[in-house]
C-alpha cells in the first residue's frame, strides 16, 4: 500500500537518501522540507500520513517543530518519528519523553528504513 510521508531534515544528503529509500524500496510518496518552519507549513498544507523529523536543525529544531505540530489542530494528529544521530541515553530519554511515535537513529539502513517506520506505525 502506498503511503505519504514528509521528511524534515536540513542536511540534503540525509534528506535525499531517506527519500530515495522510501520511494524506491517501499514505493511511498515522499515530500521533503529543509527546515522546521518549512516542514510545519508543508504538513499543514499537504497532510502527510506521517512525518520523519530530524532533531538537530538550525532555527527551529526537531523538538520545537514537534511541539508546534502538536499545538496546531491541522497537524496534531499526524504521527511523528524523530530521526537523530544522538546516541546518548539521556538524549534518547529526552526525545522519547516528548511524545513522538518513535526515535529512529542515524545512520539508518536505506534498505530497511521503510520497514522500521512501518513497524512503528502498524503499516503492513
Amino acid at each position, binding site marked *: 500500500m502506498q503511503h505519504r510521508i514528509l521528511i524534515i531534515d536540513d*542536511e540534503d*544528503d540525509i534528506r535525499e537518501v531517506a527519500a530515495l529509500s522510501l520511494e524506491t*524500496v517501499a514505493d511511498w510518496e515522499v515530500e521533503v522540507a529543509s527546515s522546521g518552519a518549512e516542514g510545519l507549513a508543508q504538513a499543514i498544507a499537504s497532510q502527510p500520513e506521517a512525518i520523519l523529523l530530524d532533531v538537530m536543525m538550525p532555527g527551529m529544531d526537531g523538538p520545537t517543530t514537534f511541539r508546534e505540530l502538536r499545538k496546531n489542530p491541522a497537524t496534531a494528529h499526524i504521527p511523528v518519528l524523530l530521526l537523530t*544521530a544522538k546516541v546518548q541515553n539521556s538524549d534518547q530519554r529526552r526525545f522519547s519523553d516528548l511524545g513522538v511515535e518513535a526515535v529512529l537513529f*542515524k*545512520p539508518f539502513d*536505506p*534498505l530497511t528504513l521503510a520497514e522500521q517506520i512501518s513497524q512503528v506505525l502498524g503499516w503492513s
Partner: protein
Amino acid sequence: MEPIAKPALDEVLSQMWAKFLPQMEERVAVLDAADQALAADELSIDQRAAANAAAHKLAGVLGTFGLTKGTILAREAEIIYSGEPETDPEAAARLLQITALLRGMIRNRNTMIHNRK
C-alpha cells in the same frame, strides 16, 4: 511494486555518494583545520563547535552509505570535540589520526563497497 534489489539500491547510493562527495570532503576539511588548531593550542570556541557539528553530521551519514567504521570514528571525534576545551595532547593526536582515516575512507568509498561484494 516489488522491493528494489540490494545491488540496484547500492548502485543508486554510489551515484548519490558521488553527488555528495564534495560535502563529505568539506566536513573532513573542517575537522582537519580544527585538529591542526587544537594541536597548536589555537582552537577557538567557534572552530570547536564547527568541528563538533561536522563530526556529528559525518557520524549520522557515513553508515548509511555503508561506511559503518566511518560513523564510529566520526562519533569518537564528536565526543572529543564536545568535551573539555583544554588541549589534551593524546586527544589531539587521536583526532589527527581519526581525520586521516576518515579522509581515506571517504576518498575510497566506492572501491571499498565494490570490493565487499
